[in-house]
């Protein structure tokens, strides 16, 4: 479904990612792991069209989409739930959702999808007229995910969905990701909670200083690296002589 080949992104003279390659098949749940600054968010943002790549190719459903504007990529079927949620604080919950459905103009479909999202996120149903900025962190995260789902994405990219949430809400978010997966949504997940992520994903990529250092199933990743050390950017993480599994 998605193939990223040799993707590089620069911010001025600084390389954020260098030669990143990854792929996702339809229905998969794949994690992108790595320490702060490893290039996870840049990778997602570049796939979503928010950042122009310096070089490399992004193929989605058979079409090269690198460098295309974000609105085009969303219409193609990729939705990003960004780190920090980026919900519109002055817009009500229902207005946020309506904008999420922008690419699907039918009012009837919007009402049907809204009802479906309320079923999936009951708390949002109680907050429909409330301004997005007044929701709690967990509610905002649910709104950000619901808003992304309103465009019926073929690929949903979640950037740190549990960041800043209480342990109870983190449980809810992971349960939700499980439910989305069960519904057949293809997901690319960036998550700081590595252990929890490896519990639910099919495969994972490990990024370090802008490069893919390892790829494999959760068991392979666990066998290969010190999971605890990933988010400390621990250089001693024992990839050792085996190199990556890729």
């Amino acid at each position, binding site marked *: 479904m998605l193939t990223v080949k040799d993707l590089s992104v620069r911010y001025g003279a600084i390389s954020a990612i260098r030669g990143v390659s990854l792929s996702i098949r339809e229905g998969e749940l794949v994690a992108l792991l790595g320490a702060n600054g490893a290039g996870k968010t840049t990778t997602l943002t570049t796939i*979503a069209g928010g950042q122009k790549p310096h070089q490399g190719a992004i193929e989605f459903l058979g079409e090269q989409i690198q460098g295309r504007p974000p609105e085009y990529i*969303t219409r193609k079927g990729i939705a990003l739930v*960004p780190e920090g949620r980026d919900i519109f604080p*002055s817009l009500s919950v229902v207005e946020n959702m309506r904008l999420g459905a922008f690419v699907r103009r039918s009012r009837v479909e919007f009402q049907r999808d809204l009802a479906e999202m309320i079923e999936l996120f009951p708390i949002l149903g109680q907050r429909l007229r409330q301004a997005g900025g007044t929701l709690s962190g967990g509610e905002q995260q649910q709104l950000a995910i619901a*808003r992304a789902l309103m465009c019926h994405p073929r690929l949903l990219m979640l950037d740190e969905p549990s960041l800043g949430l209480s342990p109870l809400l983190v449980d809810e978010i992971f349960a939700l990701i499980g439910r989305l997966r069960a519904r057949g949504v293809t997901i690319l997940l960036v998550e700081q909670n590595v252990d929890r992520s490896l519990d639910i994903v099919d495969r994972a990529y490990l990024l370090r200083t802008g490069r893919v250092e390892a790829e494999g199933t959760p068991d392979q990743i666990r066998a290969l690296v010190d999971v605890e050390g990933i988010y400390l950017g621990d250089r001693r993480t024992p990839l050792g002589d085996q190199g990556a599994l890729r």
Partner: protein
Amino acid sequence: MITLDFLVNALSLGSTYALLALGMVIVYGILNLVNFAYGELIMIAGYSLFVLSLGPSLPWIVMAILSVGVAVLTSYLTERVAFRPVRQSSPTAMLITSFAVSTLLQNAALLIISPRARGVPLARLFSESLQVLGATIPLRNLLAIGTSVVLLALLVVLLRTTVLGIALRAASDNFRMTRMLGVPANLVISAAFAISGLLAGVVGMFWVGRTASVTPTIGAAPLLVAFVATVIGGMRSLEGAVVGGYVYGILFSFIGVLLPQGLLEFREAFMFIIVILILLLRPEGLIRGAYSTRRIG
């Protein structure tokens, strides 16, 4: 002495300034661009009225609607021709472009028409008054208030109930995320410029109505008013722009009444002292908008 005609006059000035400020903020909120060519849209509307008056006799309201339409079209075209090609560049490039457009339009008026003032036709009610409770109230003031209320109400309906309106408000909050939801940047920006042109055009009718004339530099004063009103209200808030416009207009009227005759020529200086005091107390303006400062084209 505060009388009914004074209150109507203050409210009329505030209403006009509110529309002015809103037209500037709707573009600034999305592009982070203070459009210095905004005042020239008022000039264009005024000259359109002048040119239309030279042709076959048309009812004033028809000429006014056509003139506002020319301002809308000009605003759209400035975005399409001048701003869109540099949108990906630095904010400085956008700012310089807005100066260039402003200078270009002013000089075009100077060369094509005349550096001297040209008379514009006005509707009869611009010179008529109404007697209410012993006060003489110019009808143009009531017309300005009524027009502003209707336009603001229509804008509220557009911004609250249509998908395009919601997208415009969202883009003011966070343009990058708005695009990530599939909203085309060109659609939102073109709509913002068109609305900005509409508001400038309508204000232009009242602005030229003060002196029944138009000059190439007529846009400078309303541009300054719009800028100061948006600073008072909050540069990133549509509601703030309206509030800032009314506060500016009403304060300006009050200063005119409260100042002694000998100090009236310093009216604007006193106004700016008040503006500075407001900004010292609320640097972000009276109404705080979204915090985002990102500009993505």
